[in-house]
């Protein structure tokens, strides 16, 4: 059964230096509050896993929390580059960042394999691209029935999986709706999991399009109202598109980036932007 605990305690208990950590949320329900708590707790050498690193990993990378990134698309959606990510890759600032790069289909299937207790997944993907040349984690596999050659990728089973959701009940059952993305797979694939939620309610009344992750499949639940901002939680908050655009300027420069983190993440009483 999931324990409902404060965010700070959940992160302190679950996330250790050197862990592989997946903070997911495919363009919706991105767990910014949890990511900021990881920055506040000063974690180091994390292997960060995420399909779309987005602003949250730009911030973790810029603060030197990560030594490796496993991802499939590292941009600022609809805006352009992630400058802290690029600075780390192009100039090794503030620390060199090892990359393991996949396609979305490959990453999604790696989480599916992890959630399914399988060591690998099979897909029609990567063939003819230069991606297999950059990692040992993309290999050909032959169908034992047709002889056709396809592509295999290894399961992802992060030490810690962290997602945001709209609601949980007091027993720790989690409910989310809208774009459900890869949330369930990450929780089920991870060895330990944390779900931050907009609110904790007495009863999870059924909602169209909602999925429920039962409490017994989750390690911790923590209340984090607004915890997905500047991403959003459908029916609770709206996506702060202006901040995504503003981030381009903030993150372009190392000093303005640090100043923003100091003010909005590290300062006493700071709240997720």
């Amino acid at each position: 059964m999931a324990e409902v605990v404060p965010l700070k305690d959940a992160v302190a208990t679950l996330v250790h230096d050197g862990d592989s950590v997946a903070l997911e949320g495919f363009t919706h329900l991105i767990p910014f509050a949890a990511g900021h708590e990881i920055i506040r707790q000063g974690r180091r050498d994390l292997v960060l896993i995420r399909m779309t690193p987005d602003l949250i990993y730009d911030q973790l990378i810029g603060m030197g929390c990560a030594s490796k990134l496993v991802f499939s698309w590292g941009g600022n959606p609809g805006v352009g580059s992630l400058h802290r990510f690029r600075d780390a890759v192009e100039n090794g600032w503030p620390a060199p960042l090892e990359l393991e790069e996949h396609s979305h289909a490959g990453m999604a299937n790696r989480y599916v394999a992890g959630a399914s207790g399988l060591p690998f997944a099979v897909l029609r993907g990567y063939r003819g691209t230069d991606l297999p040349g950059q990692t040992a984690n993309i290999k050909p596999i032959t169908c034992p029935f047709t002889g056709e050659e396809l592509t295999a990728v290894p399961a992802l089973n992060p030490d810690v999986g962290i997602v945001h959701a709209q609601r949980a009940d007091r027993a720790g059952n989690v409910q989310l709706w809208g774009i459900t993305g890869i949330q369930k797979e990450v929780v089920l694939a991870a060895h330990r999991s944390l779900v931050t939620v907009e609110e904790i309610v007495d009863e999870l009344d059924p909602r169209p399009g909602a999925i429920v992750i039962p409490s017994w499949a989750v390690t911790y639940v923590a209340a984090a109202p607004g915890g997905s901002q500047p991403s959003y939680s459908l029916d609770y908050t709206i996506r702060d598109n202006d901040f995504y655009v503003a981030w381009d300027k903030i993150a372009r420069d190392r000093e303005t980036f640090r100043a923003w983190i100091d003010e909005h993440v590290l300062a006493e009483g700071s709240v997720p932007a």
Partner: protein
Amino acid sequence: MSYTSDEMMTIAAARQLRPGQVCFVGIGLPSTAANLARNTHAAGLVLIYESGTIGAKPGHLPLSIGDGILAETADAVVSVPEIFNYWLQPGRIDVGFLGAAQLDRYGNINTTVIGGEYARPKVRLPGAGGAPEIAASCREVIVIVRQSRRTFVEKADFITSVGYGSGPGDRERLGLSGAGPATVITDLGIMAPDPETKELRLTHLHPGVTLDRAREATGWDLATAPDLDETAAPSEHELAALRALTAATPAPPSRGSQGG
């Protein structure tokens, strides 16, 4: 009625889409063109975004493929594994709409790195996103990208998504089920592969664009189709619909953001 070259490009791209087609759309120029088509001649066009929204009908242009408007207006919202495994991979999608940072003479797309070593590139681009499998599995692919020597290169620094590989027969050899890039729409004109060699050649020039200008903006010796034609100028209706669509929305990104 005057118009910009970006508007001409977007309208030319929208014209490629037909009513009832199922279209896998990336954010930015592809999303703008697909929604323009849906709001003009191609009512009933089915838009699929890789966030899992099938049949989305956004009233305004989403900044991100995860915009709430997409889920709220979709016929169905499915998980990310499902959108790639059940919907894209089997070849159910008619048209895949992609951008590019580099596009080579065989329609191969680079959205990964430019210059230097892969591990220490001169420019680190966003990466693959959904593009490799969109390029592999959609029945046909339309690429929309502004034309310049920096972008239209003899050989891509990195092949993120396969067009025609190194030429005829490569897609079949690789087992890629889709037909590959059928059309490339730029701010200068329209290209399509030579049926024999699969090399991209010019089929249309937009009004007022000279062949020389198009060649100067291309990193290989750009050939022309025998029936090289001029693109019809945007109609008032097309321009009005496009401007209504973009009015409420931040400018689209300048390069392939289909992953966002």
